[in-house]
Each structure stands twice: as C-alpha cells, then as structure tokens.
C-alpha cells in the first residue's frame, strides 16, 4: 500500500465530511445514502415483513475495516420453499450496498458469513427474498469505534 494519511489530513477530511453531512442534513430529509433506494429496487416496492431473518454481528465493532457478519434466514430450503436472495445494506456508509447473497435449494441452509467495512456506527439491514415472492427483513445497530472507509 502506498497510501499514507498523516494526522492532519485525516482530521481535515473528517471535518470536511462532517461539514458536508450537516449541509446535506439541513437541506433534505435524513436519507444518508442510497440504502433505502436499494431496498426498494430489490423488493420492487413491496413491504417486507419482519422476522425470519437474523443478522449476527458484534454490537460494538472496534475496527470498522473488518466486521464479521452472519446472515441467516429461517427456511426449509427445499425446492418448494427456499430463500433466493438476501440483500444487505448499511445506512451510514458512503454507499449503501454491502453484499447480496444468492441461495439455491442446493444451499441446504440459508446462512452466509463475510466481513464488511463500516464507516461509522450505523444500522445494517438485511432483506430476504423467498421463492414465493415474499420478503422478510431484519436490522441491527452496530457501534463502530474506528471507521473503515479509509478517511
């Protein structure tokens, strides 16, 4: 890696970011990024019922550069009834999209784990799409001590 931030630059950029966020906040509603739009595009505007989906993450993440996240969906995962896709978004990152998992009946269990970046403390939202066209959702608030988007 050839990227080096000294303390002054980090402070300057973060102050800039805060100022920009305040500016945006004062103009429009508090939609931090495109996460709400992503969910809307994913569900086609349908309402997602809560439940069935579980996000397993630490409540306090010390290092936002790599936060372990497990998403599981309660489903029999048979040809008749299974989870097709799970969208994961984060409402406080520069961009809302995090990861989309695609399952098949061959998956056996609708569960996947990866490690993600979180810029600051925020809410993680997972939306699961079932093969019958219904949607389920869950969210989890995660506190981040050191942000993970490189200043």
């Amino acid at each position, binding site marked *: *890696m*050839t*990227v*080096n931030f000294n303390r002054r*630059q980090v402070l300057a*950029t973060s102050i800039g970011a805060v100022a920009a966020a305040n500016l945006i906040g004062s103009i429009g509603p508090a939609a931090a990024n495109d996460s709400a739009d992503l969910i809307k595009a994913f569900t086609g505007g349908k309402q997602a019922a809560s439940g069935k989906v579980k996000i397993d993450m630490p409540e306090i993440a010390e290092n936002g*550069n*790599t*936060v372990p996240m*497990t998403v599981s969906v309660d489903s029999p*995962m048979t040809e008749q009834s299974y989870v097709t896709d799970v969208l994961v978004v*984060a409402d406080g*990152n*520069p*961009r809302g*999209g*995090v*990861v*989309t*998992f*695609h*399952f*098949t*009946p*061959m*998956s*056996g*269990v609708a*569960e*996947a*784990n*990866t*490690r*993600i*970046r*979180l810029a600051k403390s925020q809410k993680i939202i997972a939306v699961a799409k079932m093969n019958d066209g219904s949607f389920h959702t869950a969210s989890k608030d995660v506190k981040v001590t050191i942000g*993970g*988007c*490189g*200043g």
Partner: protein
Amino acid sequence: MASKPRMKLDKKEAKKGEIVEVKALVSHIMESGQRKDSKGNVIPRKILNKFTCTVNGKLVFSADFQPAVSANPYIQFKFKAVESGPVVLTWIDDDGSKIVGEDKITVI
C-alpha cells in the same frame, strides 16, 4: 495479485443430504474507490465483485460484493451434499480476471 485462495470444507466425505460448510479466504486489496491518495486523486475502485460456488458443475451459492466488503474477503456458507464432484469457488475481479479455488466432496 492472482494468489491462491485458501478454502476448507468441514468434511471430505458426507452422507447424502448432509450439510457441508465451506470457508474461504482470498487475498485481494478490495480498493473501495472512495479513498484518495496523498495528492487528492481518487484511487480507482478495484474489487472482487462476484463470487460463485459450484458443486459438480451445479451452482449452489453465489454472492455479489460491493466495496463495503473488507479487504481479503472471507466467505463462509453451506451446501447440501447430493452428489460427489469438484467444489469450485470462483471470484471475479472488476478487471475481468478470475481467482479459482477447487476442492472435492465425496458423497457416501
């Protein structure tokens, strides 16, 4: 950059219908496209954007990665053992290159 991924199945042999867990780690910078270098230029995005797993040629699991996935992406998932065959993991880079890992599962 095209280093070998590390992958592990929790069992080499499985009974039919048994659940097999896959863990895989690949080294990759996953440059988000959000960061700037010391001159203030945006460092172009370079991530692995797609991951797929096939067992005996059949797709069992896939994922789309966004820049919010950490560097050296780790992925863990499960599949149902139905037939013996190669377990192939493929990561696709923004530049079109592929990183491939392979193991095999035997259904007894």
